[in-house]
């Protein structure tokens, strides 16, 4: 293990082969774990008709970091699958909204736990499962439900993807990953759901064997490509870390 070189020199190179029409999952939740650098590289790379899976369509951060909304604005997105496709505060307007309202981009709105579980199912060879979430709501209208032990459940299907873009704290050459604190969020689950996993890594990439086998959050067997994030301003960090680095 680890003899296979997974380390790629640049974000551009790591995502160069992404074809039009690909399905990509983007890790991250409220900042930590978000693959800002890979997203920026994808904006430059220009692949079109993408299906993008993430917690939110983005646009909430000020100053704004590379997000799904920018890919939408750049004309690269056919569909988003997210837990937020509109703001919950009437005064907020997401960048995505006007593209959705105009019909330019499609959207599938999925409860956050169902989104995580559908990704997990894809990575676990489970084609479909039942969940109590969203029963009795607009999201369940016209869909298959089933009563089990007296409670009604909704049938949900696995959500596989071609690529996952995630950010990790540490990695070794075998592709084993560690996430720090809230950076973990969707990242390990998306890594299991994707055919190709591309990771931007905060710390220097370690030799295989440097990480304790008991303390790996994502096994290297899921990970194909690792890119070390260069220091700011070349590499994008969280907003505040980037500001500090200036």
């Amino acid at each position, binding site marked *: 293990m680890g003899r296979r070189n997974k380390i790629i020199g640049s974000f551009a190179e790591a995502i160069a082969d992404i074809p039009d029409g690909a399905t990509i999952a983007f890790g991250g*939740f*409220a*900042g*930590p774990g978000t693959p800002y650098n890979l997203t920026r590289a994808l904006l430059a790379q220009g692949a079109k008709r993408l299906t993008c899976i993430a*917690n939110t369509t983005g646009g*909430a951060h000020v100053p704004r970091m590379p997000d799904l909304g920018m890919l939408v604005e750049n004309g690269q997105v056919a569909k988003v699958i997210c*837990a*937020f*496709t*509109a*703001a*919950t505060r*009437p005064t907020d307007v*997401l960048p*995505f*909204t006007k593209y*959705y*309202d105009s019909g330019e981009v499609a*959207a599938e*709105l*999925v*409860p*956050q*736990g*169902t989104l*995580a*579980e559908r*990704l*997990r199912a894809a990575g676990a060879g489970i084609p479909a499962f039942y*969940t*109590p*979430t*969203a*029963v*009795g*709501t*607009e*999201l369940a209208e016209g869909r298959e439900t089933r009563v089990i032990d007296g409670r009604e459940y909704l049938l949900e299907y696995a959500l596989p993807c071609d690529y996952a873009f995630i950010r990790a*704290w540490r990695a070794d050459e075998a592709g084993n990953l560690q*996430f*720090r*604190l*809230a*950076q*973990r*969020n*969707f*990242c*390990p*689950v998306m890594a299991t759901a994707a055919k190709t996993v591309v990771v931007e890594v905060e710390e220097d990439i370690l030799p295989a064997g440097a990480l304790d086998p008991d303390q790996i*959050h994502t096994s290297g067997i899921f990970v194909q490509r690792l890119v070390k994030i260069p220091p700011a301003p070349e590499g994008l960090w*969280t907003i*505040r*870390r980037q500001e500090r680095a200036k």
Partner: protein
Amino acid sequence: MSATTAKGWDRQQMADRLAQEFQDGWIVNLGVGIPTLCSNTDIGDRDIIYHAENGVIGYGPVLPAGQEDLHLVNAGGQNVSLNPGAAIIHHADSFAIIRSGRIDVTVMGAYEVAANGDFANWKIGGARGGGIGGAMDLAACAKRVFIILEHNTRKGEPRLLRDCALPVTARGVVTLVATNLGLFAPTGDGFAVRELAPGVTFAAAQAATGAPLTEHP
């Protein structure tokens, strides 16, 4: 129907009042907005574990600028601290905890709450998309759903109603509602007044509510 003249509780007071209901040993999930203020409340001797959707179990107060750990956020994106005994898990495991009924109470904001315990907080009238986040999972699966919201819209319309007009987040799940006017419990037909904020009369609360109020037994 007009808004009451007494303003009642402010946002932190609403959160403080609901946090008084948290019982020793509870695992509590706080939604974005006013609910996050509950973790500022002094809960004394009670052992409360705050759980966030992003897999942070056992977080503590929000940290001031400069002291934050930028890898650590709660579900609202605030940089919080960790209490001793905290643990980090991934999103699917975090919602496994939610769906398996281990959250003793979820506290959320809402646009509307109905007398039968329905509530709506994910889709604004007329909008095409929505912002569900973890609300549907939490609402369907937590042992209790508490709601904090302003008693009336900016236009003075009631938010406590006989039936929700907006698409619901879950049906029949709300058991307690804190507003600026007081603490209310859905009864099926209306709301029982558990407590009124200082200066708020029953009549004023009734006038601001879209369903019958009853005195709490």
